[in-house]
């Protein structure tokens, strides 16, 4: 069985956006978020609607970053943590974009990127967007206890991130060159992916999801390098979604024995989102918004700046429900992987494999960083699209969403 799918044409990230709440803003990556609402409510009266609004804002910011309108998107693949993915459904109805809902628990981000790049390789779609959100309090209500309920979290518990990420991908050379001409950065692409297998996490404790997902992550990483010609040395980073402290420790234990060269390259989004030294988040961040927002705020910029050339990016999902846990079923993990490649990095390893349509144009490449500043900015003084200063409390009215809504 061949598990790695090589894309006929690499899928380029033409825009990405990250949206978050107060805790995410206070974290180390806070400054890189495109939009922050420190009240976590995004101007809505329920947490579920707040998650929907967060997704809407994320997609709008991403659209505006690459100067597109919603009608330019052929398909959107969206998912979130709520039952039946209702948050993204509510978020996206006003856009009128053909929609595919996906649920991979916390693996939704990679899952949707994988599907988006696969759809693009069919050739009939020009631009495919993905949207992934999670909201701490909406998830808490659905999976655990009421928001005001007084209970202690065990040390292995993770904090569901109030965050979302939107990505717009394209394989079309024209679009990418057009983007380049307009000074919009095209920094990274997906070259191949591996669909994750379902792995029994052998644990029934909903407060220790990182451990349950670690085996799925290990399976995907080991399978990838078993089949691929590449070795972990060809990658600068192997990034997992939200294993947190416990899951990361288990994964590294496994890799130490089975694939030692991968250990030092491992990073986990769940350990990057919050300041683990000053905040008592226990085992780290979780939720599908974690990997989406960290990819957009941290790893894509790294790829863009050329600091890293190749990343194997796996979001890890813990598949469970309250009743499946109560009925004594163990948590199943899944970890789809995508191979992210930088277009700006001085990458000698396997760059000949892909013919980046704009990579050879040095002139455009140099202006990238400047161009990024010049992009259509939001309504605020920060110079970042849609970014509101956290003390201003609410979402500003004129951050560009209304034009889509109407």
């Amino acid at each position, binding site marked *: 069985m061949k598990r790695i799918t090589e894309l006929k044409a690499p899928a380029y990230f033409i825009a990405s956006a990250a949206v978050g709440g107060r805790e995410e803003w206070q974290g180390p990556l806070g400054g890189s978020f495109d939009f922050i609402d420190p009240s976590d409510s995004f101007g809505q*009266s*329920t947490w*579920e609607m707040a998650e929907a609004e967060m997704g809407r804002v994320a997609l709008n910011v991403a659209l505006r970053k690459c100067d597109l309108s919603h009608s330019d998107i052929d398909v959107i693949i969206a998912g979130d943590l709520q039952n039946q993915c209702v948050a993204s459904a509510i978020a996206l109805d006003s856009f009128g974009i053909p929609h595919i809902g996906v649920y991979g628990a916390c693996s939704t981000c990679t899952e949707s990127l994988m599907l988006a790049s696969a759809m693009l390789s069919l050739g009939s779609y020009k631009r495919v967007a993905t949207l992934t959100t999670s909201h701490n309090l909406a998830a808490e*209500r659905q999976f655990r*206890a*009421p*928001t*005001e*309920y*007084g*209970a*202690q*979290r*065990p*040390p*292995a518990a993770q904090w569901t991130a109030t965050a979302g990420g939107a990505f717009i991908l394209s394989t079309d050379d024209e679009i990418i060159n057009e983007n380049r001409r307009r000074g919009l950065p095209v920094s990274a692409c997906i070259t191949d992916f591996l669909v994750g297998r379902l792995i*029994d*996490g*052998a*644990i029934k404790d909903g407060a*220790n999801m990182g*451990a349950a997902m*670690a*085996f799925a992550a*290990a399976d995907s990483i080991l399978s990838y390098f078993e089949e691929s010609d590449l070795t972990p040395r060809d990658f600068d980073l192997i990034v997992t979604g939200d294993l947190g*402290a*416990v899951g990361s*420790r*288990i994964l590294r*234990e*496994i890799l130490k*024995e*089975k694939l030692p060269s991968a250990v030092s390259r491992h990073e986990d989004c769940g350990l990057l989102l919050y300041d683990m030294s000053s905040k008592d988040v226990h085992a780290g961040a979780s939720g599908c918004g974690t990997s989406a927002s960290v990819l957009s705020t941290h790893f894509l910029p790294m790829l863009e700046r050329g600091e890293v050339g190749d990343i194997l990016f796996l979001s890890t999902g813990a598949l469970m429900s309250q009743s499946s846990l109560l009925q004594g079923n*163990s948590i199943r993990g899944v970890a789809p992987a995508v191979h992210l490649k930088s277009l700006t990095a001085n990458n000698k390893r396997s760059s000949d494999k892909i013919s980046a349509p704009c990579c050879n144009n040095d002139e455009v490449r140099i202006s990238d960083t400047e161009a990024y500043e010049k992009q259509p900015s939001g309504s605020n003084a920060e110079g970042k699209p849609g970014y509101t200063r956290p003390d201003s409390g609410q979402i500003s009215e004129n951050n560009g969403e209304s034009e889509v809504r109407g």
Partner: protein
Amino acid sequence: MDIYTNEGKKKLIKENTPRSTLGKNLVKSFLIGGAISGGGEALRILLLKIGVAEKQAPVYVSLTIVSIAAVLTLLGVFDSIARHAGAGTLVPISGFSNAVTSQAIDAKSEGLVLGVGAKIFSICGPVILFGLAAGVIYGAIYYIAISFGW
């Protein structure tokens, strides 16, 4: 290392999952739980002093704790206290009150009847149900016992 069987996985999980720092939790829950009980006792003595019947006094104490816990839940500070107190606020009747109020406030967005009305019982319901069930079993045994003159 065996990562393909449940036993191997469980072993790995067990080795790498941190345990709660029991020492600190124990002290905090002891102090806070003790303070609630001690405060209740002080109130009970006060109530007895002002002439409340011996049988009624502990009921009033419970009602006071229930009210305080509910107000703290409304203000959104109960969960911050409970984060430290653990069993210290869970075990006294305050935990029961918090379970009711937090669930009610939480379910507000789903409407008064099927939201608040139904979900208000989701944590306190089992307590009432099994308390009553145990009480009925005890009552049945007690009734049989006295009927036979044991």
